């Protein structure tokens, strides 16, 4: 695990920086004055009650959702709603979804090679080679020629992670990657994520898996009602949360 002191050193340029980010749906405030800076190699877990804006927050980073105020910078470039060239920024930001979102009309290996072939101009052979390496890493290489529907949920999610990694991203976003999985499938996916973290990938993970947060996170961000309520290292957050809302959330989480 990386040293917690690292991310506070001011000279390391943040890979993602959010300053005063706000988003409204009509009257409803989905995100309010979000300030968060994430440095290279850092692992951040975002948690909070449902509807607190966790997913919206990470979806703003690659502009699947647009923000209405504030600035978001990804590896030095500001991302804006309706901007030209957002594709180039997205290529550096891998994303894994709750519902996997594999392309059902493509085989597993074709799911993985699509991005590199289209975006990075890789030849089909090279892309396939890279794809097989990543499938090997998520321990699913033998399923390469199957279609997504033929795989279990856990396998599909591991394919989705491999698909994102094939683009060689600088940053990975995970949007509740284990929430749609059967309990026995969860650990396989978490193992892949832990390995990824140990390899030094920068990760922002929205999850309710508190064990994963304890083990991997450099910082835990707690959100409620569209605001960041508390940011702390996992030790402090789980043992001595400072805010009432975090205490309430943790007690509810532990009570069942």
């Amino acid at each position, binding site marked *: 695990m990386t040293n917690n002191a690292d991310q506070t050193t001011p000279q390391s340029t943040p890979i993602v920086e959010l300053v005063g980010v706000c988003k409204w749906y009509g009257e409803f405030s989905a995100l309010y004055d979000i300030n968060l800076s994430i440095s290279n190699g850092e692992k951040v877990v975002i948690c909070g009650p449902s509807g607190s804006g966790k997913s919206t927050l990470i979806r703003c980073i690659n502009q699947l959702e647009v923000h209405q105020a504030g600035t978001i910078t990804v590896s030095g470039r500001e991302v804006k709603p309706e901007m030209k060239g957002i594709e180039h920024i997205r290529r550096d930001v891998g*994303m894994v979804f709750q519902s996997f979102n594999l392309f059902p009309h493509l085989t597993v290996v074709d799911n993985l090679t699509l991005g590199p072939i*289209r*975006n990075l101009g890789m030849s089909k052979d090279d892309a396939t080679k890279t794809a097989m390496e990543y499938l090997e890493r998520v321990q699913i290489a033998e399923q390469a020629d199957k279609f997504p529907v033929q795989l279990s949920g856990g396998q599909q999610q591991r394919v989705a992670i491999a698909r994102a990694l094939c683009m060689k991203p600088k940053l990975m976003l995970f949007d509740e990657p284990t929430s749609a999985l059967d309990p026995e499938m969860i650990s396989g996916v978490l193992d892949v994520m832990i390995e990824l973290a140990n390899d030094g990938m920068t990760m922002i993970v929205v999850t309710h898996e508190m064990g994963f947060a304890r083990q991997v996170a450099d910082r835990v961000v707690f959100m409620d009602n569209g605001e960041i309520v508390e940011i702390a290292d996992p030790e402090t957050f789980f043992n001595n949360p400072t805010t009432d809302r975090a205490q309430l959330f943790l007690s509810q989480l532990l009570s069942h």
Partner: protein
Amino acid sequence: MTLVDLVLFGLVAALIAYAAYRVNDVLVYHWNWSRVFNFVIRVDEDTGSLVPNLLLQGLATTLRLAAWATVLATIIGLVMGYWRTSKNLTLRIISRCYVELIRNIPPVVFIFIFYFFVSSQLFPVIGIDSIDREGALVTNSVFQFFFGDPKLLSNFLAGMLCLALFEAAYITEIVRAGIQSIDKGQWEAARAMGLSRFNVLRDVILPQAIRKILPPLAGQFITLIKDSAIVSLISIQELTFLATEVASSTTKVFETWITVAAMYFVLCYGFASVFRYLEKRAAKANR
């Protein structure tokens, strides 16, 4: 096969026999298939070989008309169908107006209006009328295979454009429904990967949408072939138009129209079978 089936078959056979009886003995209609058949294929007097006559030429024109109109209507339908789902308001307004305008006007009325616009305004401007009818560009056999008699080129193009624009409105709606049936997560995953707008559509959305819309699309193509008969009203020399001429000049009305009906049936049923085969193959690949 149950007793009910047998009774029903019997009834249908009786009905056909009765209709034949009415025509033969009550109307005192003199069947003469050979006169009409001569308009399908005739013997060329100079060479003594068989050459296609009016009805077969009309069928060829109908095929060309349908083929080009299908290509054009598919292109327009894909673009307009995508525009219908676009975020851009202008594109949505244009495509919506197009679809509503055409769907709520009878085809014949639309074709009358549009034909006069096309033949009197559009063609002179883009220079279709001033193409040399005897030039090397149009008198070669390749051109004639694809576009028919060069003397009738503007006539053919006008009919084709009318038909394509008319059918494209329906294809637009089919494409729109297909695109909208694709899960939002597919768009998001493709976008998050950094695919360009065009690649998202080409590689992720359309392949899935097309599998879903293949059955209604096939139906629309068959409808297009049948609807091509409408352009006979603006004197496009396709099967129905020429059949009208043959029927009136030979006075063999039944023979002519039964022959023409059989021709349309073979054409449409043939295409329907091809589409069914394609659908089955797509379903297998989609397993």
